[in-house]
């Protein structure tokens, strides 16, 4: 079931990240109250020794680990790493649609700032970091060119009591890796159409129904993440 080659798709050889670290300490969502109650400053990751025996985080991509450190601990060095990875790609992505370098950098800055500020909304059980940032980027691009800002669905609140499911997070990443491979395997012209579509360069009449991409499997996986979240939100409302 678990494809090992896929699992390490995202992982680069970074000696710092390659250190065995603990997924639970990265994911653990402690409220700032709980942290300050123990007299720790907020910036200090609330690591505890008894959690150190769980090691499955090496399977998670660096991007997810950075994002969780930002979300849970407001970790600036993780943000700096996330910036180093995404900002140049973001600039390239935005410039692909004919935006000037200077304007593209403004968008990059806005997007990365939103990533920092809205980190609490990041739910790794439903989204892979790149997809989450993609959406923020398109929002920003639309807001720049249009008078009306983009209509977005209601956000689902994240619960504080959430017990993260590392298996689910990993599965979402693996599905995203599969999409990446599937895109790479498309014929060049088909691949170009898909890229144009996601760059926002095709109208809804031009978008094809059949892309040859296996979106169904990642959709089912995301659905599981949504069901888990709904279940927990329901539990909160009806204690």
């Amino acid at each position, binding site marked *: 079931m678990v494809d090992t080659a896929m699992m390490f798709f995202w992982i680069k050889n970074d000696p710092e990240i390659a250190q065995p670290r603990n997924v639970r300490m990265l994911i653990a969502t402690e409220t700032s109250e709980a942290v300050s109650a123990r007299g720790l400053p907020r910036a200090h990751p609330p690591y505890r020794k008894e959690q150190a025996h769980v090691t499955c985080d090496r399977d998670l991509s660096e991007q997810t680990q950075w994002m969780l450190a930002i979300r849970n601990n407001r970790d*600036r060095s993780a*943000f*700096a790493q996330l*910036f180093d990875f995404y*900002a*140049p*790609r*973001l600039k*390239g992505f935005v410039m*692909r649609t004919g935006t000037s*370098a200077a304007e593209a*950098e403004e968008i990059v*800055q806005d997007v990365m*700032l*939103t990533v*920092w*500020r809205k980190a609490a909304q990041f739910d790794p059980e*439903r*989204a*892979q*970091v*790149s*997809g*989450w940032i*993609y*959406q923020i*980027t398109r*929002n920003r691009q639309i807001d720049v060119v249009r008078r*009306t800002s*983009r*209509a*977005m*669905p*209601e*956000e689902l609140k994240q619960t504080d009591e959430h017990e993260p499911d590392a298996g689910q997070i990993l599965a*979402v990443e693996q*599905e*995203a890796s599969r*999409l*990446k491979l599937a*895109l790479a395997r498309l014929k060049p012209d088909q691949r170009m159409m*898909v*890229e144009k*579509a*996601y*760059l*926002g360069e*095709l*109208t*809804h*009449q031009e*978008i094809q129904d059949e892309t040859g*991409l296996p*979106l169904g499997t*990642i*959709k*089912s996986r*995301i*659905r599981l993440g*949504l069901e888990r979240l709904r279940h927990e939100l329901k539990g909160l409302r009806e204690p």
Partner: protein
Amino acid sequence: MKTITHHIPERLLAAYASGRLPHVFEVVVATHISMCDACRAGFEAHQAMGGVVLDDSDAVDLSDDLKADLMALLDHEMVEPAPAQRDGIFPGPVVEALKSRPPRWKSLGFGVKQSILEAGSEGSLRLLHIPPGQSVPDHGHNGLELTLVLQGSFHDETGAFGVGDLEVADDDLDHTPVAGDGLPCICLAATDAPLKFNSFVPRLLQPLFRI
């Protein structure tokens, strides 16, 4: 709770996820997603695909001080305004389109009322209020029309539509929607054709969208 049976067609969802729908349709799609986890999952799957395209983009060198400037901005912790939340029968995106005010209903006759939320060159967005058993008068449309049920129900030649259901109609559909029994039917409707009152706009100027 009744389950939603009429969902967002795949192409429309893809267009929404990539940010290529006119705003009036965006509001309807965003509202349906707010009510439907199946379509939310589909939307988020498209985001993942967009993420792949982002990852595949060539890295372009940044200006020297961009990172330092940004890191300095992190000190100014600011809460991003969260999207509006549901208010009664109106999901967040509708509340946003209403600018958090109650609808301003105007009579269209036979007890049918409308509240126009947006009307411009790219289309119109309105709420419709139809009494039980009443048909929607003069219901012809040019172009694409999306109708989402927020309260009650309606049925027409193509089927029955309850809360959360989305009807996608184009030029070819000539239908007569009739509100179901029970509560008045309240719908969110978007079209890229001009509303009746500005139908003097030449057909040539209308955007020629078709699904």
